[in-house]
């Protein structure tokens, strides 16, 4: 495709229940964002300026989870107007940190926290975009990284399927030459069950991965939980390792449930 003369694909960035961090990953690209803007037409991206939520687009990036009655309706609308729908970030792919309420009494939390709970309109559960509409590609991470976003857009512009890397964080960690923090410092690192994409940011700073990119393929959470136990973690601490940013990702949810059985013993 000749980038100069071809009709530019129309792109929208939609926000649902989220912190905006994934949109910021896109905004923080700097010069790369300008290069991208030359190849696509950014028709809706509230955080960056353009506003046209109901227009037809080729690619819609969706940040955030479905967490309110309004989200529920709007996601259907976004899907109807979008040829490709890409869910970006932990909220959009697993329900996000706000999905911690799924296992609790959310209404009771609201009553305890807000002086006017009646002003809060939220669903009992926070759910990923794919629970509501067909999602063409998922980009995991909290937040997603800019280069990841660019790689996806680039692949779509070239007419190929974006590359999904479901390998463990360890693969990136070892390529960077970081010594394994679980081995050298005995800390409970989530890297061996977590999806790559961050470039092993946390182990690179000498700390443990906390699983913000969600479950990797073939994540052996049983074996990791057993090792956490050997490292001296209490069952409740093991539950917390899996119940974090991606608590509702099925693999982490099951791991937490299993670890919770240890708490009851």
């Amino acid at each position, binding site marked *: 495709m000749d980038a100069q003369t071809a009709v530019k694909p129309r792109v929208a960035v939609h926000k649902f229940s989220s912190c905006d961090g994934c949109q910021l990953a896109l905004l923080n690209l700097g010069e790369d964002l300008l290069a991208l803007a030359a190849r696509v037409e950014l028709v809706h991206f509230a955080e960056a300026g353009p506003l046209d939520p109901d227009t037809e687009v080729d690619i819609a990036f969706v940040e955030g989870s479905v967490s309110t009655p309004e989200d529920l309706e709007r996601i259907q609308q976004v899907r109807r107007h979008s040829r490709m729908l890409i869910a970006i970030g932990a909220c959009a792919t697993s329900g996000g940190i706000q999905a911690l309420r799924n296992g609790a009494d959310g209404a009771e939390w609201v009553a305890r926290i807000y002086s006017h709970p009646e002003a809060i309109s939220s669903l009992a559960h926070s759910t990923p975009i794919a629970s509501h509409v067909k999602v063409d590609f998922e980009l995991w991470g909290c937040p997603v990284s800019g280069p990841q976003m660019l790689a996806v857009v680039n692949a779509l512009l070239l007419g190929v399927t974006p590359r999904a890397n479901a390998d463990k964080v360890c693969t990136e960690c070892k390529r*960077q030459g970081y010594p394994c923090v679980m*081995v*050298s410092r005995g800390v409970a690192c989530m890297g061996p069950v977590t999806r790559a994409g961050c470039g092993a940011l946390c182990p690179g700073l000498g700390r443990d991965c906390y699983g913000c990119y969600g479950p990797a393929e073939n994540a052996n959470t049983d074996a990791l939980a057993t090792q956490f136990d050997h490292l001296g973690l209490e069952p409740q601490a093991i539950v917390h390792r899996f119940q974090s940013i991606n608590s509702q990702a099925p693999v982490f949810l099951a791991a937490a449930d299993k670890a919770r059985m240890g708490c009851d013993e």
Partner: protein
Amino acid sequence: MLTQPDPAGFLPHARLRSLIAALRDRGYRCLGPAAENGAIVMRELDAEEDLPRGLQAEQGPGHYRLTQDPYHRYFAWANGPQAIKPLAFAPQESVWQVRRDAAGALQFEATPPAVQALAIIGVRACDLAALALQDAHFLRAGRVDAHYAARRERLFLVAVQCAEPAATCFCASTGDGPTPAAGYDLALAELSDGFVAAAGSDAGRAVLAALDLAPATTQQIEAVRQQGVAAAAAQTRRLPGRNLRDALMGRLEHPRWDAVAARCLACGNCTAVCPTCFCHAEMDVPALDGESSRHQRMWDSCFGESHGHLHGFNVRPDIRSRYRQWLTHKLATWHDQFGRSGCTGCGRCIAWCPVGIDLTEEAAAITEGAQP
């Protein structure tokens, strides 16, 4: 190192700095051990003061801790997670790129690495044996890897005899250590007051000549020999044999594969720290302007999903098949490919496995009762 025809010299501790200076004078960038994130890693070395003194590496399955060496030696740590491998076989690099020229035609060009002469101080016998295997793979006649070759050619290797093997070491059983026998430019053996030094190449001889060392005494040479014998005897792990090919290939359905798969995280750490693992993945990284693309390669692992991906299906979808691939390639089919096992007994896969899976224990359990 003592079987070389060259006479060995003696480098007193106080003159270690002159070795580093001699290498730098010859234009080598020097890398040596440094303590980082609780492990021995290879880092830029400007002077002898930069070398950590008095450190040991306590290792066990899934366990690595730096401890104090009561004798305050320079090289009492057995090894760290990496040594030579990333310096010859880059973890991530571009191998070629393609651009669209003004006429719209594609122009392919090689992207040779910028290579500087590099001296690595403190490599072990197991690392040298592993490098010979990497050479056999990357420098095979008629199929030389240009990137590997460029880096390899400019390496100057200062080996150090292991006097303090870790509990994970088993190089004596694979026949690759603990005393360096070949593949080095210079070999050192640390005694209480200095190093017995021997050259193994012309480049090493030139450096040694520049140092103008007194010859090592018969007693010093005997002390080094005894130190090597003691270090071999101190190793507590071993492989059940040097050629486990038939024993392993005859047990592809052994129940132990299921047991180890239940413990294995399939994180690939063992393959990343293994000094002989050479698998890599290649992919294209198109530039954002749509006018160029880089062909990139990076370390890959048989524990990853894409490694077993063929068109339309995956030949190794589960952890059992991936662990079996790793162990049977390393210890069995490597013999067909390279005429020996792919394991040099460094023990890194044992120490750096986050859950402490022990290759020697697994190999013994699976081959138990097999005819040697």
